């Protein structure tokens, strides 16, 4: 695997849209060619090389390419957007849409990421060592197809509306989340090791939520369904089981109605 390191040397005055920073777009290119890839600052199109110092050549394919992003990229959006293979490491905190629409590969963000990370993610692995913003793994504005595959791990906290319209894949949040978790979801799994305040699983049709901490206010559409012993993320515990959202339509599988499942650790 070849490694390309891009280091912010000339931070943008406005937010920089850098959707070309992916192993897919770097593949087969030399450092000089990578510097020529386009970025947008406001309504101005310029080159990656104007903002970043680029060292190292990419591998022949995305899978052979690793990108390390160094320096202050707090005002850079879309890093790793649509990546399908290879690796990316973002050493600092970054802005919105990290790993959005990604289909494969591994993306590690060592700092915090802003909203819309992993929007409509289909595959691959996203690890956020800091905190994630709102709408993690959610659907794009207006769309009904959120995260459908892949894995997300957030070591810190995550914001509100995460997993909105999720249809598949798995998210683990080591910290707390904000309101509206897996709203409208039709599949997938979210494990929150901390607390979730309220609006957990609103209008959820299918899918699974585990909450290890507290829920301040349960949605009225979730119905208690006994207690179960489960091993989740290596932790054996008793969980209160709820099914819901009773106010929504639900599919039938082999004659039985399929509900979304909410498990809260007791």
């Amino acid at each position: 695997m070849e490694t390309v390191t891009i280091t912010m040397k000339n931070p943008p005055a406005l937010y920089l849209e850098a959707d070309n920073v992916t192993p897919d777009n770097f593949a087969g290119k030399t450092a000089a060619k990578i510097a020529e890839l386009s970025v947008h600052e406001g309504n101005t199109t310029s080159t990656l090389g104007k903002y970043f110092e680029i060292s190292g050549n990419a591998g022949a394919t995305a899978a052979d390419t690793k990108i390390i992003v160094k320096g202050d990229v707090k005002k850079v959006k879309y890093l790793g957007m649509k990546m399908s293979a290879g690796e990316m490491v973002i050493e600092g905190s970054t802005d919105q849409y990290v790993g959005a629409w990604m289909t494969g590969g591994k993306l590690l963000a060592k700092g915090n990421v802003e909203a819309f990370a992993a929007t409509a993610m289909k595959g691959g692995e996203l690890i956020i060592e800091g905190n994630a913003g709102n709408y993690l793994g959610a659907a794009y504005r207006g769309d009904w197809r959120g995260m459908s595959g892949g894995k997300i791990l957030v070591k810190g906290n995550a914001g509100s509306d995460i997993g909105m319209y999720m249809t598949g894949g798995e998210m683990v949040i080591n910290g707390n989340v904000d309101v509206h978790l897996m709203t409208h979801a039709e599949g997938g799994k979210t494990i929150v090791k901390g607390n979730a305040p309220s609006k957990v699983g609103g209008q959820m049709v299918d899918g699974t939520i585990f909450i290890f901490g507290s829920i301040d206010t349960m949605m009225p559409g979730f119905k208690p369904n006994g207690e179960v012993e489960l091993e989740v993320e290596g932790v054996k515990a008793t969980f209160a089981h709820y099914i819901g959202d009773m106010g929504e339509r639900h599919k039938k599988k082999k004659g039985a109605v399929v509900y979304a499942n909410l498990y809260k650790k007791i």
Partner: protein
Amino acid sequence: MSEYIIKNGNVFDPVQGIKGDKKDIAIKDGKIADKVSSSAKVIDAKGMTVMAGAVEIHAHIAGPKVNLGRIYRPEDKLFSCTPTKGMERMGGGASIPTTFKTGYEYAKMGYTTAMEAAMPPLFARHTHEEIRDTPIIDEGAFPVFGNNWFVLEYLKNHEVENTAAYIAWLLRVTKGYAVKVVNPGGTEAWAWGLNCLSVNDPVPYFDITPAEIVKGLIEANEYLGLPHSMHIHPNNLGNPGCYETTLDTLKLAEGMKAKNKFGRESVMHLTHTQFHSYGGTNWGDFESKAKEVTDYVNKNKNITIDTGNVTLDETTTMTADGPFEHHLTGLNHLKWANCDVELETCAGVVPYIYSPSISVCAIQWAIGLEIPLMMKDPMRCFITTDHPNAGPFTRYPRVIKWLMSKKARDTQINAFKHKDKVLSQTSIGSLDHEVTLYELAQMTRAGPAKSLGLANLCGGLKPGMDADVAVYNFNPDTPVADPENIEKAFSRCAHVFKSGVEVVKNGEIVGTGHKRTLWVNVKVNDNPQVMRDINEKFLKYYSITQANYEALGHHFVPNPYALEVDATHV
């Protein structure tokens, strides 16, 4: 104005019966000319196909429901935006493009005239503002009449003359083009929680049936002698077994004759026929009844149709058939928007994905192609996708590919997940006909122009007609090696002229022309009763006054082109 001569192209023009002859087309002062001076700019069209600009007879491209679709589907613009480039302003949207993108995309495919198929009269101003902002193409808009309270009240007593006077008034104040009917009576019935699924279902309160509405509107249309015929989206759209309602609707035109000075021979235009040609009793035994519907239309010469081809895309359905959209959101569980339009109509919007791996969608695809392949007279069957309902209009080149190449159809059939079901429920597999370029020119130019009453203006290359010309990089003399080349050639024209102005060159916009709004100005005798009824309805029911109703003046219709009709003699 500049002169042009398009030399040595293979010309296809049904108006003059030219079937691929190598001819020069001269353009002078915005019109097709017999000859031009030696200073005319020469366009070399050797090895290319030359046709008149294409005419779109039915698309939803302007107005409140189109805009509602744009507003509530931001995801439709995701990754489909095009930045400013040369003369082109930025655009966006895949199934519901922005106004600018709409104009550019039509022009690049060689379309120069398009009809907005359903204008709610109350929102005529909005519709005209969008038409104004859609560059290049001439446009008209069809106000909807099939659920209008005036029409229901007059036709309940078979008052054709009053209906005609009201139509004349409404076309004038809304700058409308034709009489459009959507789910006659059914949309109004839905306001009462009901629908009209057959032509004999009574409309609640109004005590009238769809059959009476349809017959009465045809009579009023011919009483006035409008350029276009009554244009109908019948009851019971999109349901298994709906073809029977379609045949019942078509039979209402029996014995009726067109009366007009525009050369139109039809009295009824059946739109998006694909959605109305379904057999079966449920989605499991869903099957094609394209043969039954086209057999009837083939025999009855006073009907024209358009296809409504499913293009197998993710799109946005929108129709003034409010109850249908509510039914659809119950089927696909996707977001639904609805708007009631006071005394006139309502509209619904729901996204839809025509997936090649769903058997019903694949059968719908096949039905859309069976219809034009089964129609004996291409002058009475026009290509549409009922944009954006069965697919975006930008897919016309793909539909043309499927029509012109059996090989392309077979490739698609073989790609379907439920291929056997498509072959057992339709007869697409046994249809060998490949549409010729001459037939294509009939289906997309001369035919729709004639049905719209525009035969003297557009859809042909006869000297004196508007110089709307499309030059395709497609050589009819060489066999088509790969059907993909058909799609490519019809996607981007080598040259397009709109009223003599070059607007497209090598697939790029090079001019925006002098876009016109086509409307129909009917003179009728004074009708004090209808005027009194209009005043009363505005005072009693409408949420706005008459003064705020009319689409008047330069702001709404900056460049009008009125087709004059005198109905005072009758």
